[in-house]
């Protein structure tokens, strides 16, 4: 069973993510946090298998929280969920230690696909993003996905 920590400052969004994840076999919710600071604290406490985290939050935000979590636990699996569809944000997210980048405009099915991909130790980026540029970022940062997921099918 994969346990997810859901981090978003919007309660409605946390609720939506939880209802989608709970309906998926093999997945459960480890906990929820409304800020980056809380995410860092709950990650140590709850030890989730994967963290699904918003980038734009008051306080330290999702990128800083990602860096802090990855400093403490380099093997942490963090999937960022955001409105920002700029490729530069993806680079910054992967540099911070995230291993997945999902857009809030992506579908329910894509959310679960992203979680499955990152949980399997692979790198994921939304299919709405430019796959060639994602591949280039993944190569630049040396993020070689063990199972070689291809960017053309939505993951890098």
């Amino acid at each position, binding site marked *: 069973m994969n346990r997810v920590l859901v981090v978003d400052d919007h309660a*409605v969004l946390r609720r*939506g993510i939880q*209802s989608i994840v709970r309906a998926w076999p093999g997945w459960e919710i480890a906990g929820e946090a409304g800020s980056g600071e809380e995410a860092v604290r709950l990650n140590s406490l709850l030890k989730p298998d994967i963290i699904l985290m918003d980038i734009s939050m008051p306080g330290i935000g999702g990128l800083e929280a990602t860096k802090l979590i990855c400093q403490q636990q380099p093997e942490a699996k963090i999937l960022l*969920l955001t409105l920002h569809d700029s490729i530069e944000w993806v680079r910054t997210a992967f540099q911070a230690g995230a291993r997945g980048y999902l857009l809030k405009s*992506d579908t329910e099915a894509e959310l679960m696909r992203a979680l499955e991909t990152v949980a399997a130790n692979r790198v994921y980026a939304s299919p709405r993003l430019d796959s060639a540029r994602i591949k280039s970022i993944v190569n630049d940062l040396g993020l070689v996905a063990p199972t070689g997921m291809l960017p053309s099918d939505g993951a890098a």
Partner: protein
Amino acid sequence: MRILIADDHDVVRAGLKQLLLERKGWEVCGEASTGRQAVALAQDTKPDVVVMDIAMPELNGLEAARQIRKSLPKTEIVILTLHLSDQLAYEIIDAGIRGYVLKSDCNHDLVNAVEALGMHRPFFTAKVSEMMMEGLRGEKPRELHNEARGRLTGRQREIVQLLAEGKTSKEVAVALNISVKTAETHRANIMRRLELHSVSELVRYAVKNQIIEV
């Protein structure tokens, strides 16, 4: 109580649906991911309340709300949005919307808003009410408001959104079920009225006047 949910994000719709269905006697009668779909579903299902995001493709939530209020005056609308601005407050009041909740407000604020509007009572959270009072004291938003609303008709604002989203005249014609010639005439009238000379200027106008978001 029958509620229609309109938001272009699957996760938000899922969250809203779960939240609203927890209340006994409440039913989600439809889900829309664009403003245009929301108008069509509202006409089909005649909900008591529509929970509507503003930033949606094809037709934004404000224009969709104006159309729904016009054809279904008994249907109340709650705007649920990320944004807080006095400009938007004017637009909301002008559209006949009587509920405005921020996505950062608590879940119970939204439930309270739907409940109040179901009884045809207005509902604005404390944060929103405060912002509206501030906006009413200032003159600048009123000027912006006049600029945004006074120069175009509802139909023209719809066309501005579609063009600013990159649609061609043919695609506008299909979306609005009008002839290509009529779409082109609308386009020429809009450009003339706004004194714009290119699509990029039109996009800037649409962003500035919150017809689309980037």
